[in-house]
């Protein structure tokens, strides 16, 4: 099945938020902090701007509390007395044109008396740098199972290693943007976003309005990757505040530089491993420490930390595991949700560490993984017994076959001995990714979904899940059509609009197809029951029944509904971090082949194989596209994308010097699926969206190590860093 919304996108008819015609609108812009930390002494608005018809908004214009509702109430909508990071929003302006608004914002000066900033999350903050509690720790967690100290002391071999990953900018191609206007008593916000109900709850609180007076509508969204999960709430509140003050519609659209400087990014991480092993390489004990840079405010750091920690021991069996983690507050831009959500960082560490172990104890890296991969009946770090019937050894074998791993390795030895300046290597990573919310998240969310039977016999899916490029509309159409035995043309997917669709949770955590897809199936069943049909009914019978129902009940709405039900046998304890962290996992092995140029110190990926088991593959074209796109983002994170920091601000906040992969930087990505349908996922699917971010970086690093003999442990491996390693 082809993309549902593809034709509009191909012809330029799609209306992204900046494209939306908006009568009589003003343009917004944001005045930001020049300093990483300090007290705001003054906000200087030049005289010629005062009384020029410019609309100005600051924290005093907020009807509700000055917080962006998320996990912790610490993230100000507009800084009041103090600032905690560079580019923190302080004031908003609106003017008659985009250019005028930007010019005005640039002329307003925020004068800050600086205070000592905490800029390195790896260092214990000094007394003057403490801003949260007595240690700047935003969140601390521990996972513990077995007798780690005893097992480590008894282990014949202990291998230690430290690993580091840098921040990553989302670079969704469409920058953040919102439009806001007043429709009578109602504040309407329309824009680029992943999670309409996150924005709604942030707005109702900030504006002190009941839900009936706030309406959030998603516009076509040009990519998200997590970057439009947390941050759009801020843009939405800002646009709404301006619209209320100006009593005119507002467009607030970020340009690229502002977007890259001011919005959330992937958490930088530092991870330390101490691993106890038998002589053969069996893992006997894990002692792992995970430290994340949380940035200036909590945002989603606690959940990113927990997902990262749960994945930190990799897809391997071990009875004695301790994982300690903390997220540190620093005076840099808040870090937030980004595809993978903590797992890419910790999986990078464990999968690079596995190769470090292999080298140190003289075991083949493939054998080492084979020896330790989880088999059914064994438990993960949180004590979750894996029993899904997936043949993880087979996933690995398939990747080795497709990449011709062993053959390539011997070829490379010969190639490297001959070539003057090119070195080739191949590396792998075995990993897993938990799909859906962590722990009790799905149960707490209580997602609700409707499908409406329409008077003309068509069926409309009413869901808050957003299309952000990943193919939601297509997959939902396919699931509903299959479930009701209807032609896909008979299915409509409602635009996510909080006035029309119920809250079936945010579009995050690789949960849309698996969790929400299952809700669609059940809501479809419910719809059929409501018109007195059973599961054997044909599509024609259903459509006739829908038409008849509406004839009998004019002007009434006919809804089939479903609320989330936890799959049986799932237990999770939030206190001890023990139990079934995820209801399902995707399993994967990725192989990267690289070529390093010793003249330029650049590493290039020349072949890439991605093999995964993700339950049933519902639409192979879309699934492949997700994997290919994710792998290329992972290649970027591993080799090219470096956020350079200057006084807590991103110095290279333009595409001129923050480099993401182009078509010429990457090879074709060879993708293969193994299928083991998951009984509780939509049509048997497990989540897929985030998994492909986890594998590329460690596979590439292992390949570079194989090619050159160096031991890279800090990501990204930009030429400067590779040069240092090779020259040493």
């Amino acid at each position, binding site marked *: 099945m*082809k993309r549902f919304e*593809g034709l509009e996108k191909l012809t330029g008819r799609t209306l992204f938020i900046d494209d939306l015609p908006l009568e009589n609108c003003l343009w917004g812009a944001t005045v930001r902090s020049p300093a990483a930390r300090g007290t705001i002494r003054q906000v200087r608005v030049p005289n010629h701007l005062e009384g020029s018809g410019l609309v100005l908004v600051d924290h005093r214009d907020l009807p509700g509390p000055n917080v962006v509702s998320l996990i912790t109430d610490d993230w100000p909508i507009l800084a009041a007395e103090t600032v905690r990071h560079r580019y923190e929003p302080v004031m908003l302006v609106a003017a008659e044109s985009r250019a005028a608004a930007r010019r005005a914002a640039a002329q307003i000066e925020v004068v800050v008396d600086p205070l000592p900033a905490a800029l390195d999350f790896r260092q214990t903050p000094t007394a003057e740098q403490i801003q949260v509690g007595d240690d700047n720790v935003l969140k601390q967690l521990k996972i513990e199972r077995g007798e780690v100290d005893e097992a480590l002391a008894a282990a014949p071999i202990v291998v230690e290693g430290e690993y580091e990953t840098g921040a990553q900018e989302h670079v969704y191609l469409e920058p953040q943007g919102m439009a806001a206007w007043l429709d009578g008593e109602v504040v309407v916000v329309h824009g680029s976003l992943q999670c309409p109900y996150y924005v709604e709850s942030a707005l109702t609180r900030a504006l002190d309005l009941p839900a009936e007076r706030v309406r959030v509508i998603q516009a076509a969204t040009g990519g998200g990757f997590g970057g439009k999960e947390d941050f759009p709430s801020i843009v939405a509140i800002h646009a709404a505040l301006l619209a209320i003050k100006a009593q005119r519609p507002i467009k607030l659209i970020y340009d690229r530089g502002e977007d890259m400087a001011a919005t959330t990014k992937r958490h930088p991480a530092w991870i330390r491993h101490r691993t106890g092993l038998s002589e053969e390489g069996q893992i006997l004990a894990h002692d792992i420490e995970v430290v994340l840079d949380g940035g200036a405010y909590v945002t989603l750091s606690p959940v990113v930390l927990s997902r990262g920690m749960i994945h930190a021991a990799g897809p391997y069996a071990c009875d004695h595991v301790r994982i300690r983690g903390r997220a540190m507050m620093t005076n840099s831009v808040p870090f937030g949700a980004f595809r993978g959500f903590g797992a890419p960082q910790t999986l990078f560490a464990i999968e690079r560490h596995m190769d470090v172990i292999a080298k140190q104890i003289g075991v083949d890296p493939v054998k080492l993984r084979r020896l330790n991969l989880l088999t059914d009946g064994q438990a993960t770090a949180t004590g979750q017994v894996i029993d899904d019937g997936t043949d993880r050894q087979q996933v690995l074998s398939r990747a080795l076959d497709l990449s011709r791993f062993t053959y390539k390795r011997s070829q490379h030895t010969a190639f490297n001995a001959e070539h003057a300046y090119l070195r080739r290597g191949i590396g792998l990573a075995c990993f897993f990714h938990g799909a859906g919310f962590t722990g009790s998240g799905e149960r707490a969310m209580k997602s609700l979904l409707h499908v409406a039977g329409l008077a003309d016999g068509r069926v409309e899916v009413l869901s808050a899940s957003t299309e952000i490029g990943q193919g939601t509309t297509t997959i939902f159409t396919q699931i509903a059509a299959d479930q009701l035995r209807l032609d896909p043309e008979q299915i409509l997917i409602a635009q996510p609009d909080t006035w029309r669709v119920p809250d079936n949770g945010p579009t995050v955590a690789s949960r849309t197809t698996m969790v929400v897809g299952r809700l669609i199936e059940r809501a479809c069943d419910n719809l059929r029951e409501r018109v007195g049909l059973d599961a054997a009914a044909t599509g024609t019978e259903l459509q006739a029944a829908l038409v008849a129902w509406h004839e009998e009940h004019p002007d009434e709405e006919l809804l089939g509904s479903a609320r989330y039900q936890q799959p049986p046998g799932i237990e999770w304890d939030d206190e001890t971090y023990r139990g079934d962290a995820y209801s399902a996992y995707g399993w994967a092995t990725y192989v990267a082949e690289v070529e390093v140029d010793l003249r330029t110190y650049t590493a290039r990926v020349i072949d890439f194989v991605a093999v995964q088991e993700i339950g049933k593959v519902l639409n192979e074209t879309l699934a492949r596209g997700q994997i290919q796109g994710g792998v290329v983002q992972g290649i970027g994170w591993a080799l090219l994308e470096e956020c350079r920091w200057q006084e807590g601000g991103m110095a290279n906040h333009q595409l001129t010097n923050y480099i993401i992969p182009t078509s010429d930087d990457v090879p074709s990505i060879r993708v293969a699926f193994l299928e083991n349908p998951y009984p509780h996922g939509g049509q048997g699917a497990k989540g897929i969206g985030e998994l492909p971010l986890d594998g590329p970086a460690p596979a590439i690093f292992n390949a570079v190590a194989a090619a050159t003999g160096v031991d890279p442990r800090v990501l990204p491996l930009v030429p400067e860093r590779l040069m240092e390693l090779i020259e040493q």
Partner: protein
Amino acid sequence: MRHQIRVEVNGKSHEREVEARQLLVHFLRDELRLTGTNVGCETSLCGACTVWMDGKAVKSCTQLAVQADGCSVTTIEGMKQGDTFHPVQEAFWECHGLQCGYCTPGMIMAAGALLKENPSPSEAEIRQSLKGNLCRCTGYQNIVKAIAHAAQGGAQ
């Protein structure tokens, strides 16, 4: 400073008075309401704003509207002729060459221009020539495939 310009866009002639510093992309989007051309960076890096000027692909964020005076401009809206899609549009549809769609108009314009110059490019040539058009969603694979597909179709 304002200037009078005459530009043919998608076969239609437009006469307008524009600010000297107005960018072509803003002229197209704001004055002519042709919003299919997207803005991703305004620094000539992402290619989302690619259009044709006298048949050649240009980034409309690096051109001033006044530079288009007397020129013929084609945007994504001008690619479909009546009910017939341009072969590159057709191929992007067939090969799933898009996800979020934000890069897509620029990609199609860049690809169309490539195929005019080189009707049967190799994969390496396609990858090389698309270097100025960023896509964050697809990993480029299906875009490259689509262009190769269009090239084969175009060779009939």
